């Protein structure tokens, strides 16, 4: 995000992106992914994180993830899950940001999205094992990794379409 951009415009962009991230998660209720794994979601909100990585600064990306996790925790009253969503969300955002900014010649948006989903699920399992103090929980990791590849590919494909459209229409072009 450029330094010239006003504080209010930055906040406006963040508000729109976080609102979008939460609203598009509603679409997940309408579609079943072809993996019957309990608790696995498409993670459509990841599309917004990817958009933020491409168009905005690192600080804005972290702010978006942070605000999204807090708002979801407050609205769904699932405060205990905040530890899981924050750790997974922030770590995956950092990994995706590094991959896009430093190794974009090696990875496509789909690849970056898959990596983000893998990091997100791995972090969640790691935090769960820390919380209950049992490493046996890691047996679930391969299942989640397969799910991450599928969901990451899907969200990455959608993100690519959104990015193309945004670039074409010049949305956030001054970012």
């Amino acid at each position, binding site marked *: 995000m450029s330094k010239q951009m006003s504080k209010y415009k930055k*906040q406006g962009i963040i508000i*729109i992106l976080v609102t979008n991230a939460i609203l598009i998660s509603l679409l997940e209720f*309408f579609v079943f992914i*072809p993996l019957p794994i*309990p608790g696995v979601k498409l993670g459509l909100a990841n599309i917004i994180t990817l958009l933020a990585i491409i168009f905005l600064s690192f600080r804005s990306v972290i702010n978006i993830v942070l*605000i999204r996790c807090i708002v979801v925790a*407050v609205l769904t009253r699932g405060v205990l899950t905040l530890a899981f969503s924050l750790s997974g969300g922030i770590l995956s955002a950092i990994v995706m940001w590094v991959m896009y900014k430093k190794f974009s010649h090696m990875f496509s948006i789909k690849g970056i999205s898959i990596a983000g989903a893998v990091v997100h699920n791995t972090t969640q399992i790691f935090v*769960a094992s820390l919380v209950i103090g049992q490493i*046996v929980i890691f047996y679930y990791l391969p299942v989640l990794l397969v799910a991450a590849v599928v969901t990451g590919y899907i969200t990455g494909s959608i993100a690519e379409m959104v990015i193309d*459209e945004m670039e074409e229409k010049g949305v956030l072009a001054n970012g």
Partner: protein
Amino acid sequence: MKWKKKGSWPMDSGVKLFVAFVLGVIPFFIDNYFNFIVLACYLLLITLWFGAKLREMMKSMTIYMFIIIIPYIFGLLMASLVSTFVQNDISSIYSAYDDVALRLVQLFLLWYATSLYFHSTATEDVVATFDKVLSPLKRVGLPVTDFLKVVMCVIKELKALGPGVKKSFSESMKHISEQSSWKDKIKGISYILVSFIVNSFERLDEVEEYVKQVETKDLFTYKCKISKSDALLLMSFIMLIGSVIFLEIHSL
């Protein structure tokens, strides 16, 4: 959940947060099993007192199941399966049952106490209380109020746009649902999302103007007001703490 329009038990959100926090933390410091029963009874009692809906609270419990319980049970099953093939001794895993059960109960009580707070307090009050609680961070230069202002703006946006967007999504999905494969559904979702996200930026000027105009005090303000209900809650809470300490000392 909001109070029923300043209903019969309006309470200070700061007092409630303090009580909920301590109730959530206590389970990690007690050993006497009877204390867990006392604590559970007290939590049930204040659930009724706060007017929180138990069913709604239990719904938010499902995520706890998906994140912790299911992976743990799956892990146990896999460990048993692996041990039959490689003749490993998994007695250490099974001997940890008691510890894991205790940890799950502690986590459940922590989750319950914090959920109780959120289910019985208006969002504006929750944000205002956090602004107050996090004020030490303001002194080190962190823009806590600005951050919470954005949080509150997002919540307002969601409340304003949520029902309309949900309706429009379900109408758009009706056309897609007629097609059979999930691939078509994904494709359909992609088209919906692309236009939704791109079009949402048409409101940027409007949102920017709103953020510029709105004062923080219009979104959230915390003023400590100790009512009779708060005094009653604090008294019952002190009695509970006293009983818990008494039981702990006498169980040693």
